[in-house]
């Protein structure tokens, strides 16, 4: 009787362990993240660090920066999830190298196309915050904050003009070379 109980407990434990392993495995697959170009890692870190530093000021710009940071973080998370990873393939593709293990970028490019208006709206929200930040900074003569806001709107235009279309081009190129 006791050995049966021990065996049943062991089975139950094994089953539970299997469920945990299976769940975490599928979770990993679903949330598998690809790297982004290192230049963007640095740019995102610097932008958030600078905005956080402005947010610590006891000024109107500090208040605006604290409010703006959520919109910037949200957009960066989206970029890091599926807009920027395809760009890591650009150097290899430019060197004429295409392989089936690059196929993940096709789905990301399709997602960028589907979400284009949402992504654009996020840029407009960031621009609104930067306008407000720069206007407050002009009144308080914080030249560094105006420079930061100018840099941020230039980055937004860079995303719209170059990075997002380029990620889509990479996806389309891979589809043409590797099939759907």
């Amino acid at each position, binding site marked *: 009787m006791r050995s049966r109980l021990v065996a049943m407990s062991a089975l139950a434990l094994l089953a539970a362990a299997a469920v945990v392993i299976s769940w975490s495995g599928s979770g990993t697959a679903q949330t598998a993240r690809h790297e982004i170009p290192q230049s963007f890692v640095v740019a995102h870190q610097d932008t958030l660090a600078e905005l956080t530093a402005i947010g610590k000021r006891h000024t109107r710009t500090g208040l605006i920066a604290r409010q703006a940071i959520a919109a910037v973080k949200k957009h960066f998370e989206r970029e890091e999830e599926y807009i920027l990873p395809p760009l890591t393939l650009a150097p290899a593709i430019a060197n004429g190298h295409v392989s089936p293990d690059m196929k993940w970028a096709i789905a990301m490019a399709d997602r960028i196309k589907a979400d284009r208006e949402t992504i654009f709206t996020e840029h407009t929200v960031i621009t609104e915050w930067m306008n407000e930040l720069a206007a407050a900074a002009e009144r308080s003569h914080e030249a560094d904050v105006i420079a930061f806001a100018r840099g941020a*709107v230039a980055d937004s235009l860079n995303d719209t003009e170059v990075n997002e279309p380029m990620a889509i081009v990479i996806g389309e190129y891979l589809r043409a070379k590797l099939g759907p």
Partner: protein
Amino acid sequence: MARSVLVVAVAAASSLLIALPARAQNVENGQKAFKQQCGLCHDVAAGKNRVGPSLFGVVGRKAGGADGFHYSDGNKNSGLTWDQATLDKYLADPRATVPGTTMTYAGLKNDEQRKDIIAYLATLH
């Protein structure tokens, strides 16, 4: 006859005197609103493009017409001329007026502020 001409002239002069300060007020308010809403991306000096094109001489200019600025296809091919009515529509909702524009601006919903900004832009010649 001479009396009626005089009456008309006096009426015209009076309305001009009333209109001039109102217009000056529009321009002044417009300059302030411009700084807050547009000044981060647009310069008003001739030929000085930033993230957006220079807006010197924009009123009456064809869309996509600032020298040395790389426009979106949407803007270049819009066929628009920036008269006051078109600017008003564009400033209210840029993406709806010029699909494909890369101007990351949601639009200015305040009618009075748009009118003031356009009054200010009209002075830039």
